């Protein structure tokens, strides 16, 4: 073919064929060739992702297993890490700072531990999301799969991590006198909503982090601020009650997604933490956040699908 028009190229002329004179695009169309690396339609993308569900599951489990494989205690750290985490927060906020204002004191430990675990779920999903593409460029540049597999896989890994934490949480609940009842069934939908929200957030930060890897340095500070503003270790209305703040501020803080999902799980598990502690319409807000961030994050990530892995 004489399509090699570049200077210095020895063009190899093929025998006269019916394809002679066609442009590349016409030739491609004639034989049904498609543009390599083009972004699939949104529906096709969802279909491809579904086809890769086994890879997504296997990848998240592999990451989870590999995490502690060098440690002597091995997988025991899955449970020990959240337990130690909760112990540190209890020492500082429960004992030193006495942050349990407005919460019955026998409920404070379950209140705190639930907050820490639920917030950690979102926090680590975001942090993993930032590095989902930028930290796996080798994979992105070597193999072909819908890139959303990576952030989804990482937030699945965090979900599995959370399930280990739930073992600790149940033990804490039992120790402080909250026993399983029907309301515990609400944990399922609450965590499901949070998982959808987290995945959306991970997708958003995966795209941003692939363009600006510096986010990995910045996000820990943003997330810590978010944690302190969400009432992980104190009750937002009780803490702001005697402060001179505008009336909308406690509402705003309570309706932020992290606070909403923490409150939903606390409400489900802790008997004394009843609906008087919850802001109104909390389930609607929880569903709204999950749908909004989940769908928007997915579309935002998909929009740059063909550009991941560049340079």
């Amino acid at each position, binding site marked *: *073919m004489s*399509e090699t028009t570049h200077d210095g190229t020895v063009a190899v002329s093929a025998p006269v064929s019916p394809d002679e004179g066609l442009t*590349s*695009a016409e030739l491609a169309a004639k034989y049904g060739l498609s543009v*390599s690396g083009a972004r699939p339609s949104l529906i096709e993308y969802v279909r491809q992702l579904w086809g890769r569900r086994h890879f997504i599951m*296997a990848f998240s489990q592999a990451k989870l297993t590999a995490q502690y494989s060098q440690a002597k205690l091995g997988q025991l750290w899955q449970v020990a890490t959240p337990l130690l985490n909760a112990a540190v927060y209890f020492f500082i906020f429960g004992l030193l700072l006495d942050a349990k204002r407005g919460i019955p004191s026998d409920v404070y430990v379950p209140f705190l531990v639930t907050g820490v675990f639920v917030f950690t779920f979102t926090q680590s999903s975001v942090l993993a999301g930032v590095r989902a593409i930028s930290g796996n460029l080798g994979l992105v540049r070597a*193999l*072909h799969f819908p890139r959303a597999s990576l952030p989804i896989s990482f937030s699945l890994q965090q979900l599995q991590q959370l399930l280990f934490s739930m073992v600790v949480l149940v033990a804490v609940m039992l120790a402080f006198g909250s026993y399983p009842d029907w309301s515990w069934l609400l944990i399922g939908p609450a965590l499901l909503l949070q998982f959808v929200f987290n995945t959306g957030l991970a997708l958003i930060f995966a795209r941003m982090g692939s363009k600006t890897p510096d986010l990995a340095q910045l996000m820990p500070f943003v997330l810590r601020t978010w944690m302190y503003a969400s009432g992980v270790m104190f009750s937002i209305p009780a803490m702001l009650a005697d402060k001179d703040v505008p009336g909308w501020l406690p509402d705003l803080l309570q309706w932020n997604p992290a606070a909403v999902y923490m409150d939903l799980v606390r409400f489900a598990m802790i008997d004394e933490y009843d609906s008087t502690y919850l802001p109104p319409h909390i389930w609607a807000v929880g569903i709204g956040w999950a749908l909004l961030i989940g769908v928007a994050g997915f579309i935002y990530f998909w929009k740059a699908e063909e550009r991941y892995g560049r*340079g």
Partner: protein
Amino acid sequence: MAEENDGTKSGRVPTVIADDLHIVYRVNAGRSGKGSATAALSRILRRGKDDEARGVRKVHAVRGVSFVAYRGEAIGLIGSNGSGKSTLLRAIAGLLPAERGKVYTDGQPSLLGVNAALMNDLTGERNVILGGLAMGMSREEIKARYQEIVDFSGINEKGDFISLPMRTYSSGMAARLRFSIAAAKDHDVLMIDEALATGDRKFQKRSEARIRELRKQAGTVFLVSHNNKSIRDTCDRVLWLERGELRMDGPTDEVLKEYEKFTSK
């Protein structure tokens, strides 16, 4: 000419068309090459201007390459280090977005290699499954091929190594397992990047035979290698890249003769 040999029949079906393809890498590094804090700061302050001013360096790796590959061809890619061979392969596979120009392909071309998907902390067994899934095989396919993969790698010849983490393998053993996983899948358009030179002599022979087998099943094969002998053995057409430009495109013997003249200079 190679193309005429198998191409005179009317059934010449193109599988890969590259049309004036340009690939540009962007590297975040000051022009001075220093990563100092002040350099980074001045880079941010100059934001909004073009990439060059902000100290983002462009590497124009592939410059205007065009060719058409047909079903049944085995095409070798040669050129000195950094001439853009691997970049071109990745662009054909759709893994690197093109700056300008387009690549049209029949189906999904795949690079032979799963290294990036494997995890050193996992056992060989789990890596076989993970690698297979990463390449897009189904769980059933992997189950069916599992024993074949392990036997081919020869990992278990010296004891039950497949149930040990991959970090305990010698580099040769790990390379053999990686190749065995990668070669387990059938491909429409297959691209091999220097994959022939792994393992000991015995394994090399086995992997060359496997590549010939894959070649027969695949529609079109691209092979990047610095070993002229393996190019001569496998390919009937050769693309010679130099500084990102297509310098020569033709039958293996002709191009290799010119290339050898060029490199011995």
